[in-house]
């Protein structure tokens, strides 16, 4: 086999990049590099792995906003308002890789950049930390420093002299327009840099593997950018970029060290919560105030904070088994939620409390977010609750109703009083054409019928006692929220489904079992070996071929 090192994977770690002696079993060579130069691990050369296409992804709006904060400070971050993300397959990251820009895209970026420019002129301190001349010696020569240094950060690569010249020309034109005002030149120079496709789009094309022509290894700068965007939620620091350009992030060990360092950064929990924002998609619809007079947007906000605090507790504070998110016997509440759940409020404004045993609550599936999101404005939906669990927790797809099925809800005979469960059993589970799909949805919702459309505990529905006992396949008999939560937590599909979703979010493409099955199964196994700790999953993911390789540019 020809030993041709892929650029960016030279393994010549100069400093701090991980002088690797031992490769782990996730695709790197024995020397810790990823150059595909031998078949020593059995994964390089001749494998069946075909990564998804490389290409460009538009930076997500949270990544854009955080990057502005990194480059220009809080004031500029506060006014950064890029075009909204467009989701595809449930993820903005996939939309950012697949969907064409709207016609208003550049206008919205420009509006944002102009605002940022004004904010930086008024508050130049952060920019001056990269380019001191902005405050120390403002003048035309400074425009060149700005283009070189800020351009390097924003575009994630050094600029050519011609590119610097193009940018400086704009600055000078603006300075003249501003009648000699340095800050006019500064503002429009920043607009010029931020409006460039080199800032807006993240290019991930890698370098072709010498032995596997369908595989392209992301370069060091591409890798640190991809990892930073995932774990930090922003572009990498200038120091990291320069180190990557020097070849210090070409080894998988260096990437692991880098990922661990980012996970310890204060920005990591916010960035990873962006993932969960999409994974859980907790947009809580408003409620009918006649049916739920205690509904308010403030209550919905409290619900969201409850779920976010449990997430952060499991992943960051306790750094514990992900399944705790489902079977925790505690939660985090404020006065709003204490009133809703019928519990005593904690002493602090939002504090950790034990869940009351008599309501059989456990973890996320008995929190207001899940329960209220998957309900109607005026009442419960057993279908929605079950559908959400199947689709998001277990990655089990329920097809839409076939066209020849009558989806209509029959009229309940006047005077006949029925619970929602009784209605749904009649219309969703008696007819085989409906039951073939609804048998996997409504029964899971039946178990949660003791929680109303806001998540309040109840014992009656429509004036009739609630029957929450169901027998559901391998999960056996369940009678309450704890039973359901335990089954969801212990089902191996739950942790695997989280892995699938992190792949989607982290690289902007669906997992592909036709071409990536070994690597995905390996990631499942890594997660289990790490006792299902999400931080370790992230490390395994970013050091896997699933993350480090792309296919031909799409």
């Amino acid at each position, binding site marked *: 086999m020809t030993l041709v090192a892929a650029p960016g994977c030279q393994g010549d770690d100069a400093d701090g990049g991980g002088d690797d002696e031992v490769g782990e079993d996730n695709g790197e060579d024995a020397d810790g590099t990823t150059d595909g130069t031998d078949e020593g691990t059995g994964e390089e050369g001749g494998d069946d792995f075909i990564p998804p296409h490389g290409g460009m992804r538009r930076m997500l709006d949270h990544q854009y906003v955080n990057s502005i904060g990194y480059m220009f400070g809080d004031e500029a971050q506060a006014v950064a308002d890029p075009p909204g993300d467009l989701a595809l397959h449930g993820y903005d990251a996939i939309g950012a890789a697949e969907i064409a820009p709207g016609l208003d895209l550049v206008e919205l970026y420009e509006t944002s950049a102009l605002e940022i420019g004004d904010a930086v002129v008024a508050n130049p301190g952060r920019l001056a930390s990269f380019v001191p001349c902005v405050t120390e010696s403002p003048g035309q020569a400074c425009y060149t420093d700005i283009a070189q240094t800020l351009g390097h950060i924003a575009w994630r690569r050094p600029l050519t002299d011609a590119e610097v010249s193009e940018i400086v020309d704009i600055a000078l034109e603006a300075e003249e327009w501003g009648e000699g005002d340095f800050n006019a030149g500064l503002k*429009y120079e920043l607009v010029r840099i931020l409006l460039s496709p080199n800032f807006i789009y993240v290019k991930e094309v890698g370098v072709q593997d010498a032995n596997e022509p369908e595989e392209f290894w992301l370069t060091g700068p591409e890798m640190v950018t991809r990892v930073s965007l995932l774990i930090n939620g922003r572009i990498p620091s200038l120091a990291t970029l320069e180190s990557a350009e020097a070849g210090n992030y070409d080894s998988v060990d260096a990437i692991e060290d880098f990922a661990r360092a980012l996970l310890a950064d204060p920005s990591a929990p916010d960035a990873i919560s962006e993932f969960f924002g999409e994974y859980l*998609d907790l947009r809580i619809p408003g409620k009918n105030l006649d049916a739920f007079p205690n509904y308010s947007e403030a209550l919905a906000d409290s619900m969201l904070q409850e779920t976010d605090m449990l997430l952060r507790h499991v992943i960051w504070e306790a750094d514990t088994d992900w399944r705790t998110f489902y079977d925790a016997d505690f939660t985090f509440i404020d006065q709003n939620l204490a009133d809703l759940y019928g519990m005593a409020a904690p002493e602090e404004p939002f504090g950790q409390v034990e869940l009351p045993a008599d309501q059989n609550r456990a973890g996320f599936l008995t929190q207001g977010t899940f329960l209220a999101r998957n309900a109607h*404005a005026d009442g419960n939906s057993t279908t929605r609750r079950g559908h959400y669990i199947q689709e998001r927790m277990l990655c089990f797809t329920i097809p839409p109703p076939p066209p020849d099925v009558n989806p209509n809800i029959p009229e309940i005979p006047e005077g006949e009083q029925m619970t929602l469960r009784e209605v749904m059993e009649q219309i969703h589970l008696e007819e085989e054409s409906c039951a073939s799909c609804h048998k996997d949805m409504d029964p899971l919702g039946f178990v949660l019928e003791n929680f109303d459309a806001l998540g309040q505990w109840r014992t009656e529905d429509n004036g009739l006692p609630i029957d929450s006992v169901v027998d559901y396949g391998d999960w056996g008999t369940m009678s309450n929220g704890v039973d359901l939560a335990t089954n969801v937590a212990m089902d191996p599909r739950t942790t695997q489904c989280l892995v699938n979703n992190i792949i989607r979010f982290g690289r902007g493409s669906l997992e592909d079992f036709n071409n990536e099955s070994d690597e995905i199964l390996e990631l499942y196994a890594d997660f289990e070996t790490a006792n299902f700790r999400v931080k370790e999953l992230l490390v395994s993911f970013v050091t896997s071929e699933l993350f480090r390789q792309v296919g031909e540019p799409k």
Partner: protein
Amino acid sequence: MRKFLKRRTFLRGATIGGVATVALPKLDAMLNLEQTAFADGSTDAVRYLSWFMGNGFVLDRFEPVGTGESWQLNAHMQPLAGVKDYLNVVTGLTNRSKETITHHEGMTVFNGYTMVDIGQGQGFFSNPGGPTLDHLISEALAGQTPISGIHLGVSKAQSPADYGWTMHALSHRGYLQPNEPITSPSAAWQSLFGNLMQDKDDRELRLSILDSIKPEVDTLKSELGPQDNMRLEAHLESIAALEAKLAVAAPLCELPMDPMFENSEPINNEQLTLVNELMSDLMAYAFSCDLTRVATLMFLEGAAEPQLGEVQGAQGSWHNASHNTNTWAVGNYYDNGQIYMMERFGYLLEKLRDTPDFDGNNLLDNTIALMSSDASDGSVHAITRQPMLLAGSGRGYLKYPGIHYQPAPLSGSYNYGQWPTPSSGNCSDVLLSILQAFDPTATWVGEEPDQWGEGAGSGTPLPDILA
């Protein structure tokens, strides 16, 4: 903390404010009445708009009574009585989408394409197979106005399980090229008028910046594959769209104030009547100022689940109501909601009717509006007899007074909750008829027939509705 779970797109634009709503001034007070020509110097501009409401019709209360010239409004079209002469109603035609997954196929009446990418492991998923009619018209009118089209929405609600784009936008430039509807009136105002109201005129400078970044787009294209090249082409089009706005020397009319309303209330509590009025007013302004001649308005997305709190008897989600027999009777939620929707469409049509155009006609005289839904009978997701309501006479292009075209009457045994029969013809014939008003050379719209001769496109316009 919660902001990370409360997705940013949901908050978009909320920073502007939105505590007060400023009523837009009356249009006739704002127009420069000395103006006699349109932005491109022509005197014969025609506007096009698509209008959509999700979850279908109740056909036996919607389809007009009688056909031809002597037809009467049925119960659900009564809100359009004030503009009846401007209506050409087409019923009884078949939406020829080759696939059905519920709701998505209904969108074919706006583009003539069967949706693609069906399922893809996510159940209720598809993407549109081609460009919508409004985009074809924008292309035909390219360069005649500063803005190629404005795409608005009223309700923010979407189906909670729909991960594709077929229904998330009413306007598409092609496969995975949606024109996402703007649901904030303030953002819509900004998109239409914001660049015409500058404190300090830096437009030349900004045009220089745009000009200088184009080569960078080209360089990037050389490094990427065909799919990303298509996206970068769209990026260049986006640059061109901004350039066109910045190049506007002076608007043809005085500009309205920012309505200062964000439409940020949660689903189920949205102020849909107010948002519809603000969006309709902005569309009328945009047409009357000749900033654009193409618009779409998605009032409520198909399979979306909001409770329409402003509808009498509202109980539960609108989508649910379309399937819930308890809501269908006259005077109940679904029945009232159908009338409510037509009132909202009627507001826009009357606004256009009451707005003078430069040539002395009113805007409705010079507009063609197409209204439909994602199904004919919403309860069973039928696409037989899918109604297409045309409003406006298109500067004499469509019949005025309008007619009711119907190949055959609705079966007497039909009740809401069934696939309606008989159904014949092809809804896309209507699309081609409209397209030819803007592009007389057009001979086809939508997808070509497959090897079995099946396809949703059309090469045969519907002459009956033409003047």
